[in-house]
């Protein structure tokens, strides 16, 4: 007699797929970095380019077709055929939620979705408000939340913790311990850890939002996916019209409702009918059904549960909110006076279109080799939160680096050829002569001049004879900015040796994306 091969549960393939895509996601995430070449090979930005929610939001906002986001169409078409397989089989956020669920699951399982209309409301609100000029998709999109939380918070935190441990062993532990720990650390550095320790503004907030998504599992399984995720809602709407149908309980069925109680999405109603709007094809019900009568196949529409739909009132309300909220943007001071320290990455589009395109994914900040880019808080309004800005005193823009434009999934930051980048003006440096040592204290310095990267230096100096605090007459070199050469990279501010506020500061003045901000200079043509 032949041995029977044990049957592989069908959910195994789903789990395998989730793991594979999760690992692929982490691989791309780690690879979103400088790897010795000026061109980036792989980047996690593909995830954002297949996201139809972001594609729709960006295109509605800029009111043109954005070719970079064409792959999103493919996901919609696949969803039309297969339903919400993406949420169950591919989505890295979903996979992580499923991974953490066993640790967090509530004592009693809630079957019905708490706020079934909420994702649709958010979806409508996001799309309508994007159209009217208040882009908010990045706050709710699962990939934005995930990549941002990892890049700005979890990943640097992991690196810092490990560095602390291995610094301790390196400095305090005996050699036989180091014989083990040092190779381990070297291996981790080579494989999964970032090259350098980075710090970010809004690090805790970004991390907290991501953790909150996982903690919501305490309330009910896949809470985020069922009650918030507007991408899921968009895929659900598509799947509703899709070809693949779930055939659930029939008259033959014993009405045990095991399928309903196992469903992580609350997609099965008391009559054991499967709603393809919610179903993510996790296949748990197939395995659970004692009679094995549940089936997914391409077929004509079958009677499903009453599809989730918005009442006329909530439909109107979410659209009205989306249309009305943008009206208030013109009432804020930033409509007239933008933050002088809001320096956007090189290649960033003019502010309005930049924000309309930016999906707050945090990739530019992750890839920024100098740790120069940081999430904005409210400097550019509530719609600008988590968009990138340069904080020169933390990190400067590396002269020969063009990575941020290369990873931007929406073209909010243009991918600049190196030559264009070299002269792309993102801001302008100003000396504070009350603080600058050769001016204020008669101390020789000009570290800024040494580091200025433009081939013809944008920082020059005059030699002056001044008195220092010993009363000695001393010759010092006093630096000044050469307006036509300064590109605002911020290395001068970054390297200024003053212990607190640098004596040379970059502001957004003169940034070339806004011609109206040109600085008057006698060396320029129009003077």
């Amino acid at each position: 007699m032949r041995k029977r091969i044990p049957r592989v549960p069908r959910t195994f393939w789903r789990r395998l797929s989730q793991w594979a895509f999760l690992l692929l996601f982490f691989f791309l995430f780690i690879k979103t970095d400088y790897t010795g070449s000026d061109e980036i090979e792989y980047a996690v930005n593909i995830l954002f380019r297949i996201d139809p929610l972001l594609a729709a939001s960006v295109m509605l906002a800029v009111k043109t077709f954005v070719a970079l986001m064409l792959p999103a169409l493919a996901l919609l078409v696949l969803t039309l055929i297969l339903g919400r397989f993406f949420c169950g089989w591919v989505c890295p956020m979903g996979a992580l939620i499923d991974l953490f669920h066993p640790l967090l699951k509530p004592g009693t399982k809630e079957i019905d979705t708490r706020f079934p209309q909420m994702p649709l409301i958010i979806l409508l609100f996001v799309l309508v408000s994007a159209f009217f000029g208040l882009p908010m998709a990045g706050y709710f999109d699962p990939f934005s939340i995930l990549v941002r939380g990892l890049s700005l918070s979890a990943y640097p935190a992991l690196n810092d913790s490990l560095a602390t441990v291995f610094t301790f062993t390196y400095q305090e532990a005996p050699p036989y311990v180091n014989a083990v720990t040092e190779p381990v650390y070297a291996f981790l550095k080579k494989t999964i850890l970032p090259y350098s320790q980075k710090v970010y503004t809004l690090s805790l907030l970004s991390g907290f939002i991501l953790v909150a998504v996982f903690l919501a599992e305490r309330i009910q399984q896949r809470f985020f996916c069922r009650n918030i995720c507007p991408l899921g809602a968009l895929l659900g709407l598509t799947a509703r019209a899709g070809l693949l149908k779930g055939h659930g309980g029939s008259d033959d069925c014993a009405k045990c409702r095991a399928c309903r109680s196992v469903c992580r999405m609350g997609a099965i109603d008391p009559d054991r009918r499967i709603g393809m709007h919610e179903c993510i094809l996790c296949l748990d019900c197939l395995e659970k059904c004692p009679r094995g009568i549940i089936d997914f196949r391409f077929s004509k529409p079958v009677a499903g549960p009453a599809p989730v739909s918005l009442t006329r009132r909530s439909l109107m309300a979410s659209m009205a909110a989306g249309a009305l909220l943008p009206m208030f943007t013109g009432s804020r001071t930033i409509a007239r006076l933008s933050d002088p320290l809001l320096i956007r990455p090189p290649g960033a589009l003019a502010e309005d279109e930049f924000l309309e395109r930016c999906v707050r994914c945090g990739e530019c900040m992750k890839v920024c080799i100098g740790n120069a880019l940081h999430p904005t808080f409210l400097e550019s309004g509530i719609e600008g939160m988590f968009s990138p800005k340069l904080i020169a005193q933390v990190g400067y823009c590396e002269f020969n680096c063009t990575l941020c434009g290369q990873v931007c999934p929406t073209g909010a930051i243009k991918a600049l050829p190196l030559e264009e980048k070299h002269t792309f003006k993102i801001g302008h440096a100003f000396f504070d002569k009350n603080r600058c040592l050769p001016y204020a204290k008669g101390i020789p310095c000009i570290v800024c001049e040494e580091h200025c990267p433009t081939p013809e230096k944008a920082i020059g100096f005059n030699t002056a004879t001044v008195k220092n605090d010993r009363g000695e007459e001393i010759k010092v070199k006093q630096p000044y900015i050469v307006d036509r050469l300064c590109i605002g990279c911020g290395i001068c501010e970054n390297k200024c040796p003053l212990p607190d506020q640098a004596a040379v500061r970059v502001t957004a003045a003169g940034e070339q994306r806004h011609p109206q901000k040109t600085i008057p200079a006698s060396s320029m043509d129009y003077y």
Partner: protein
Amino acid sequence: MNRREFIRDVLLWSAGLTLSIPRLTITESFAASGPSLLAVEKGPDHVQLVRRVLASLGGMKNFVRPGDRVVVKPNIGWDRSPEQAANTNPVVVKALVEEALEAGASRVLVFDRTCNEERRCYTNSGIADAVQSLNNKKARVEYIDNRKFVPVEIKRGKSLTTMEIYKDALDADRYINVPIAKHHGLSGLTLGLKNSMGVIGGRRGMMHFNIGQKLADLATVVQPTLTVIDATKILMANGPQGGDLKDVQIADTILASTDPVAADAYATTLFDMRPDEIESRLRRTKWDSGKWISTR
């Protein structure tokens, strides 16, 4: 006038000019005869140049003994290509590493604490590739590991009392300093002792206040066995980072000396400058019973 006389004259001359302020005292070590104080070679084949300067100082075996752990410390400070002459010529670095290995070094480490992003500097300077192309496990290019900076008391310092210095530089049996000669806004030129800033930690910008004295102080603890100044291509303006090929001049020169001050002094002449024109340790460093000390 032969080379040795020339150097002696240059040094005496600069000392004479700076008599009114703290100065380099010319002592017996310069006047002493024996193996050459300083070797200078010119020519288009840079590997040969390295071999020749070493040969005139008695060969690498004079400096590196079998089993020695050697540090070769080039300037890899900037994200610039070799043509732009902001970093030490990779050909020169590679030749020196090879020579050290041939002399029996058990390990040759190459590193620098960079000003621009480390990986970009190591890659685009061509130095990482050059050393790795030797395919020798004993020759290693390493990024700076921040855990390895140790506080060092600068006992004979005038302007510096303590400094964080890279452990591998202090631990090495032989430390070969390989600066590139180039223009520098603050100090006029950057040469051998300025290159030692690549082994110090912390906020290095502070070094710029009273840079001459601080470099002299640093020289009391970071004492190279050998200084090899790469002047194959020299940056005449917009240094130390450069970036414009118009500022680069082909000088096809390499000089080497066991005496960092002598090497720096000679190198100034390549720029049509006098040694005393560089805001410098030349004025403030004194050779005293076998050690460099700072004077004020």
